[in-house]
């Protein structure tokens, strides 16, 4: 120590109580001349006892020990902080030629300085008392006592250090022992010093069996070989490590100089275990490896979880693959289905339109539509479905707008227009649907022109039948004016032949009468023509009262000749309906002639016929126009009531009726959006009631 300290320029890091004591000795009068100098004192605490003392003595002080390095003559640093991290920093940063005495070694410096100070004092005193042996003896005695005191102090200190070490050792053991991580420690002789409970539990080997032996391999390996802790203690070369661990090991990223590896140990536990193990060196104060600590981590569960996860992942992948295959299959089916529908669409016998659900723009049409509407596809795709409608049927739009998702609706007898403006009748079925993710409507139209025409022919034929049935009455009607005219003429002719003078008055009367009767005949003919004419294409607003009166103009006389009273109760404020006048008249005709027949049948059945009345009413019922035709005839028996609107159903005798009147009437009524119902009390009163929607107001 004497050699170290002599001629040294010393810096002290850690300006505490020890620093001050050392400085007091070094700067004291006894040590002057020892060629010791103090370069400076550093402490992070500006008020530290030693630092303040040094500053008072004019010694350089600093808060940053690195300032001390600036002194070129510095050759010794004494570390008195007691802080290992500071010690490590000093080791790393100090200039290479400067010697470092740590706080452990400083103890010796302190002892040396104390002894040296005493020795110097005694030596000086001996010089004074050279001629007094008793004095020398007592001085030596004093020195011995002093030395003994230092040794005693040192011993005491060592004992306390040792005690502390034992305490620390115990604490460490407790830490290791109490740790839940399986841990064991070996010393540099490869003897196991610690084997904690967790390690016992994991390996199944008790600490008593292992501690103090070098059988640390026993739980892990089938035969003796170095394990990771041994590898660390032996500071093996990498090549050698590879002999034992292959490529399954690596340097720890967390702990310096530690190695880690993961392996499956089939002998541990029932089914073997995966262990992740880390071994780190235990170093002495001088940095020498004095042992190794190895921790073990049972990763079996994690592994299993991982494997389970992997399996799940694999499973998932398999399922995804499966689903993908399914999807592919479905797509294929969809494609085939689409092809099928495409084929159906293209080869359907009826025109099919796919249109936008909002503005009815035509999106697609089939070939049949092109043929039927005589349009090219390009033309049709620039149109809306409404463009195809005949002007009066444009109200279809309202119906189409009301369609909700997946709803279908049937629109009978609408008129569509072919290219060039030729109208034709169609039944339309429109369905709401999603097409390629779009809100759309699919409409199928059926050309019913032929059946409408046939129906028209049938209506016409039945009208002619009605006319035929009424021909006797009509002939009578026409015969009346003809008779008057003829008689007037015969009168004039007779007078002329007989050479008699015709009075002015008589002549005027004849002329006047003839003229009036011609008008009357012409009127009847007009009515007949109107009735017999084929219906126009378009419906018109008709005043039903006028139509009813027109019918009575023709049949009224006939009814009165049969002593049938006609009671009319017509609401003059009734709104018009949309219909064809002559078809509507045909319905009234049929009802009136049926009523007449019913009254006559009752007359034939009973001697006393009672009232012979047909009453016709027109009135408004809610938002509809209603007409009733009642008669006091024979009535309709219950079983027949349901069938009277069937075609060819008749209760009349063979040759008297075809059984088409009511069937055609109900067809006609329905064509105008109307309803027809019958109520009948046999033998008392029968009422047919028709209702129609009012014609829309302009």
């Amino acid at each position: 120590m004497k050699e170290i300290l002599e001629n040294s320029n010393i810096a002290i890091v850690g300006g505490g109580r020890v620093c001050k004591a050392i400085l007091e000795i070094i700067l004291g009068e006894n040590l002057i001349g020892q060629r010791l100098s103090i370069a400076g004192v550093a402490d992070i605490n500006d008020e530290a006892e030693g630092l303040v003392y040094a500053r008072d003595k004019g010694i350089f002080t600093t808060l940053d020990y690195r300032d001390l390095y600036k002194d070129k003559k510095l050759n010794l640093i004494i570390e008195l902080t007691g802080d290992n991290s500071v010690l490590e920093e000093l080791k790393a940063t100090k200039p290479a030629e400067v010697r470092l005495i740590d706080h452990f070694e400083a103890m010796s410096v302190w002892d040396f300085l104390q002894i040296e100070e005493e020795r110097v004092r005694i030596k000086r005193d001996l010089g004074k008392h050279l001629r007094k042996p008793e004095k020398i003896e007592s001085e030596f005695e004093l020195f011995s006592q002093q030395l003994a005191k230092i040794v005693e102090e040192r011993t005491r200190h060592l004992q306390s250090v040792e005690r502390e070490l034992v305490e620390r050792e115990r604490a460490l053991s407790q830490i290791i022992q109490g740790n839940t991580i399986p841990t064991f420690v070996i010393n540099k002789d490869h003897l196991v010093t610690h084997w904690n409970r967790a390690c016992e539990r994991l390996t199944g080997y008790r600490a008593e069996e292992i501690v103090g032996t070098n059988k640390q391999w026993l739980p892990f390996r089938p035969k003796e070989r170095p394990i990771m802790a041994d590898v660390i203690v032996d500071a093996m070369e990498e090549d050698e490590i590879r002999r034992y661990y292959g490529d399954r090991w690596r340097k720890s990223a967390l702990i310096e100089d530690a190695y880690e590896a993961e392996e499956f140990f089939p002998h541990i536990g029932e089914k073997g275990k995966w262990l992740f193990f880390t071994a780190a060196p235990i170093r002495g104060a001088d940095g020498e490896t004095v042992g190794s600590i190895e921790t073990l981590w049972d990763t079996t569960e994690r592994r299993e979880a991982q494997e389970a996860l992997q399996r799940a992942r694999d499973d998932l992948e398999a399922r995804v693959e499966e689903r993908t295959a399914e999807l592919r299959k479905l797509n294929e089916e969809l494609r085939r289905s689409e092809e099928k529908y495409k084929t159906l669409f293209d080869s359907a016998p009826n025109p099919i339109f796919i249109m936008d659900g909002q503005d009815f723009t035509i999106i697609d049409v089939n070939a049949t539509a092109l043929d039927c509407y005589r349009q090219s596809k390009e033309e049709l795709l620039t149109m809306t479905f409404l463009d195809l409608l005949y002007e009066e049927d444009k109200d279809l739009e309202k119906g189409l707008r009301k369609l909700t998702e997946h709803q279908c609706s049937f629109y009978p007898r609408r008129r569509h227009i072919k290219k060039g403006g030729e109208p034709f009748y169609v039944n339309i079925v429109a369905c709401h649907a999603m097409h390629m993710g779009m809100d759309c409507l699919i409409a199928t139209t059926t050309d019913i022109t032929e059946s409408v025409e046939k129906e028209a022919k049938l209506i016409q034929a039945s009208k002619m039948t009605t006319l035929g049935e009424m021909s006797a009455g009509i002939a009578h009607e026409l015969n009346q004016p003809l008779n008057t005219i003829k008689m007037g003429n015969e009168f004039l002719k007779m007078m002329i032949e007989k050479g008699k003078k015709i009075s002015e008055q008589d002549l005027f009367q004849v002329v006047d009468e003839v003229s009036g009767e011609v008008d009357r005949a012409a009127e009847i003919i007009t009515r007949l023509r109107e009735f017999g004419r084929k219906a126009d294409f378009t419906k018109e607003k008709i005043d039903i009262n006028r139509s009813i009166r027109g019918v009575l103009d023709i049949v009224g006389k006939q009814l009165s000749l049969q002593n049938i009273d006609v009671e009319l109760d017509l609401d003059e404020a009734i709104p018009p309906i949309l219909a064809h006048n002559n078809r509507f008249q045909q319905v009234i005709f049929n009802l009136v002639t049926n009523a007449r027949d019913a009254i006559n049948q009752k007359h034939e059945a009973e001697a006393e016929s009672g009232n012979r009345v047909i009453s016709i009413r027109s009135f408004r019922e809610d938002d509809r126009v209603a007409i009733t035709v009642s008669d006091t005839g024979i009535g309709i028996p219950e079983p027949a009531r349901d069938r009277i609107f069937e075609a060819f159903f008749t209760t009349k005798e063979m040759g008297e009726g075809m059984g088409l009147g009511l069937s055609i009437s109900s067809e006609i009524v329905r064509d105008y959006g109307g309803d027809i119902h019958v109520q009948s009390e046999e033998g008392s009163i029968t009422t047919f009631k028709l209702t129609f929607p009012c014609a829309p107001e302009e």
Partner: protein
Amino acid sequence: MGKILVIDDEKPTLRMFRLLLGAYGYNVLTAENGSAGLEIFKKEKPPIVLTDIKMPGMDGLEVLQEIKGIDPDTEVIVITGHGDMDSAVKALDLNATDFINKPIQRFDLDSALRRAEERLKSAKDQVNEISLRKLNDVIIMDIEGNVTSLSELLLMDAYEKASERSAAKIVMRFNEHSSISGAGIAVLIQLLSESKKRDQVVAITGLSENFKKIFEMVGISRFAEIFDHEEDAINSLTQSG
């Protein structure tokens, strides 16, 4: 000339009847319906009544019945619609004098009125008389007066006599003023069908236009050919024989 009552529901027709019949010289009474007509008839007792058949309320046939019930000697001429032979036959059954079709031709009216006048002039309930005469091999049966159901025996008797003479060819000659009722027609048809079985050939003549139509309609013309003139009827039989 006497009174004549016209019943028709057509006012213009009545007005024309007034002019026309007035020009004939009749005192024309008119009624717009059956019951009004009967009232007038009861009050005025016109010997001749013209009535329309088709009328609201009481129709012409009822009027005819009522009038015949009040006075069977009244000459009732019914006015029928064009071609309405059913009504005509029904009227004849009810002993109508004649029927006239509408529109009324002056010729028909003339003859109907003339027959009525003739019948009024001759004895009121003139017994039917059938006389037979022979011309070569043809037996001519002259039928006077009206043929009704009452004429059956007379006709059968005449037929018997003709058959006794083993006549194969018979001409039935009706008087222009004769009226033949539905029952009379039935008797005729019966006799004629029997004649056919006996291979007797029959021709008919002397019918008014109206009765010619009726005979054609009821099918008598299938048993016996109808001729306007007697000579033509005789000639047809002799030539065929």
